């Protein structure tokens, strides 16, 4: 490609996001001979992938069909059998690929790969590396990227996609270089978005790391693309009450109880996450505290089985799992909805733009995700995204594009015109709270409408918010603010979706429509026309 005036960098493949999905895609594209740049708003390994403990689903030949069936059942009618087939059938190859890179999966006493059951699975097919599966996968992928000379652009915050208005072809993206404060563009033949989920909209009520603000999804919507099934958010039943830090499902798997303030057990602890989360939320809504009780397991067993958890309880709640009841609540954990993609993982409404991992909705998890399938998805679909993006041939030779100037102007406006009369940090906290209470585990029409009204008020007030820090370099106040802007876009879709889906399905539970209604056996679809959010339901293929 020839350099165009004013552009900073060009590459064949631009990957945005450096979690497991982004790095897998980058490695595949590089292997296929493409030049690759991975842009990330942090450093390459500071991704939510590092937090995934449970494991990686891979099915043997005899198990493939059962794995497919388990995943389809878990999706509650919203999974695509074609996509689920694709993922499950490539699960073994994906695992083998990770092993070939040196991901040290745990072995059993006979030296074979160890695996375990996850909730909702018929067979044992979840491979793990102690309770650090995601961390070890991510670090190993990063090492492999360095080996393959993949270029990283750290501290690059995605602003917008660069789209040809006529052809809808995506030829790169604009970024705020956090280190310099400059807005830059990276041009590419095709773009892979791997920016992660949006559980961060539930600020203060999520197990996710900071920055899970759905940046990629918001950018796609602004670029004329489509999002789908945004109302489906998986809540995890056992997060620490004060800090929302995740206490692994293993605590219940090993025999832990959930008890309420009256000291009574109130649910079968081994039911699926959505059912247990609802039971926990119901207790809390009725004014009773909920605790995880593992005291009967004894300190020795706990130190052996749940060392990470013991450490986290001590640090965050100053409690000893062996002696104390651990106060918990259900919080947002994983977002099933995201960028609507076709079977090639290409973003609907756009060309040459692929989306993979938690930011995408490849119709694999549907209304509820099966444990162990998210690590599988980021690797298997990551490789496929890398391949499809590499094979993409741009139709139009890239023209001059005004996105860079627009985004420079926007950043200038934030510095100079946004009045900062309203503290957005307070609004962020408030939004997290109302989303959690009104669009959380248990939802109803009135509560959703109230939350939507509050959110739309914040959208109107956005220009009255702003930044106090006017420095250019490493302005994290500015990054927090732009992330909050994305949150407002993404949360609106979540609320509108939840409001329109007058039924209960998987992780979406409506107190006023408790049953599943097959009129709604459809994907909710979101896009913008002249800046206005539009939505409709689309049949499941």
């Amino acid at each position, binding site marked *: 490609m020839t350099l165009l005036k004013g552009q900073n960098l060009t590459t064949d493949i631009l990957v945005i996001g450096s979690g497991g999905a982004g790095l897998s895609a980058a490695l595949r594209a590089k292997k296929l001979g493409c030049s690759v740049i991975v842009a990330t708003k942090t450093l390459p390994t500071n991704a939510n992938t590092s937090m995934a403990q449970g494991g990686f689903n891979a099915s043997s030949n005899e198990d493939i069909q059962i794995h497919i069936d388990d995943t389809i059942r878990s999706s509650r009618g919203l999974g695509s059998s074609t996509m689920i087939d694709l993922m499950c059938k490539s699960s073994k190859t994906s695992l083998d690929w990770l092993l070939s890179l040196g991901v040290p999966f745990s072995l059993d006493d006979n030296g074979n790969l160890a695996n375990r059951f996850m909730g909702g699975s018929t067979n044992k097919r979840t491979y793990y590396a102690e309770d650090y599966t995601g961390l070890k996968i991510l670090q190993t992928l990063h090492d492999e990227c360095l080996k393959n000379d993949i270029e990283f652009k750290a501290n690059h915050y995605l602003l917008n996609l660069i789209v040809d208005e006529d052809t809808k072809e995506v030829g790169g993206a604009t970024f705020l270089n956090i280190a310099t404060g400059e807005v830059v563009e990276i041009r590419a033949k095709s773009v892979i978005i791997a920016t992660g989920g949006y559980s961060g909209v539930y600020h203060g009520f999520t197990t996710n790391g900071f920055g899970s603000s759905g940046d990629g999804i918001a950018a796609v919507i602004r670029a004329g693309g489509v999002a789908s099934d945004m109302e489906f958010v998986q809540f995890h039943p056992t997060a620490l009450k004060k800090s929302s830090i*995740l206490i692994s499902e293993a605590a219940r798997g090993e025999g832990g109880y959930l008890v309420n303030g009256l000291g009574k057990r109130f649910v079968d602890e081994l039911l699926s996450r959505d059912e247990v989360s609802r039971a926990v939320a119901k207790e809390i809504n009725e004014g009773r505290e909920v605790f995880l009780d593992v005291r009967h397991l004894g300190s020795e067993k706990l130190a052996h089985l749940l060392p990470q958890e013991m450490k986290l309880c001590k640090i965050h709640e*100053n409690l000893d799992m062996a002696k104390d009841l651990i106060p918990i609540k259900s919080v947002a954990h994983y977002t099933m909805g995201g960028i609507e993609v076709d079977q090639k993982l290409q973003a609907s409404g756009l060309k040459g733009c692929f989306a993979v991992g938690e930011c995408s909705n490849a119709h694999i998890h549907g209304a509820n995700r099966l444990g162990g399938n998210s690590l599988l998805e980021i690797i298997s679909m990551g490789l496929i995204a890398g391949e499809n993006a590499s094979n993409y041939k741009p139709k139009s030779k890239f023209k001059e594009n005004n996105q860079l100037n627009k985004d420079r102007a926007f950043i200038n406006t934030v510095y100079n015109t946004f009045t900062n009369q309203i503290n957005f940090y307070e609004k962020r906290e408030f939004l997290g709270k109302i989303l959690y209470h009104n669009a959380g585990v248990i939802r109803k029409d009135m509560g959703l409408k109230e939350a939507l009204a509050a959110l739309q008020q914040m959208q109107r007030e956005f220009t009255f918010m702003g930044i106090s820090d006017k420095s250019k*370099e490493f302005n*994290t106040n500015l990054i927090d603010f732009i992330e909050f802007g994305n949150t407002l876009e993404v949360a609106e879709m979540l609320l509108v979706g939840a409001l329109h889906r007058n039924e209960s399905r998987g992780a979406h539970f409506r107190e006023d429509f408790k049953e599943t209604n097959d009129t709604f056996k459809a994907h909710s679809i979101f896009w913008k026309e002249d800046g206005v959010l539009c939505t409709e339901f689309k049949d499941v293929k």
Partner: protein
Amino acid sequence: MNITIRRFDKRKEPQSIDMTYPLFEGLTLLENLIKIKTTIDPTLSFNGVCRSGVCGSCGVSVNGKAKLSCSYKPSDGDVIEPLAYHEVERDLIVDKTKTHKTLKTSHAHLLGSAILENSSKVTVQSDCILCDSCYSACPVLAVNSDFLGPFALTKVYRYTLQSNENKKAIDAIQKNGIWDCTLCGECTLSCPQDIDPKTDIMNLRSISVQNGYNDPNFANMSFGDFEFNNLFR
């Protein structure tokens, strides 16, 4: 009850000042920093993502010792500074891109094909979260800024165990690498993941000797009269 934060801004004069903020008791240091940023001073700059000690982004120095701010509960009078031996970008944010280049220089990746049965030998080494705590604790970097540092060497050792083709990596860690380490063990003490880079470096020395390398310090040692006289006095 206060904590002191060493702030840095290269555009200001003086570039570095110590500022004191109230301590929010019961919260982690990262939660304290967030509380300061969102309620007192939005210009305070620091990193932090996962809050649970696995993403490696929030390392800082507390009273001279490297800590993950998400896993540390501060006390009255604590002095918080950026990690040592890193170029400070702003406040507590340091440039890790340079230190992470050591991973490339040292070929800290799988070179041959993976030996599956050795996975269990690298359980601890593969827990590294690239928080740079060990790097910040390493006194060798005070005298040799080109030293590869503990985490890169631990990673090299990890992959040495996982593969049978390691010549490139072993060659790469001879200069400014394993022999420059003083074996003081500060890296091991500072690691939030209980990794022991000191022992890994010692093991890499043995592997290097098996590969025909010698301890250059040994070659340079003087065995003249003075030492012997001292010894037998």
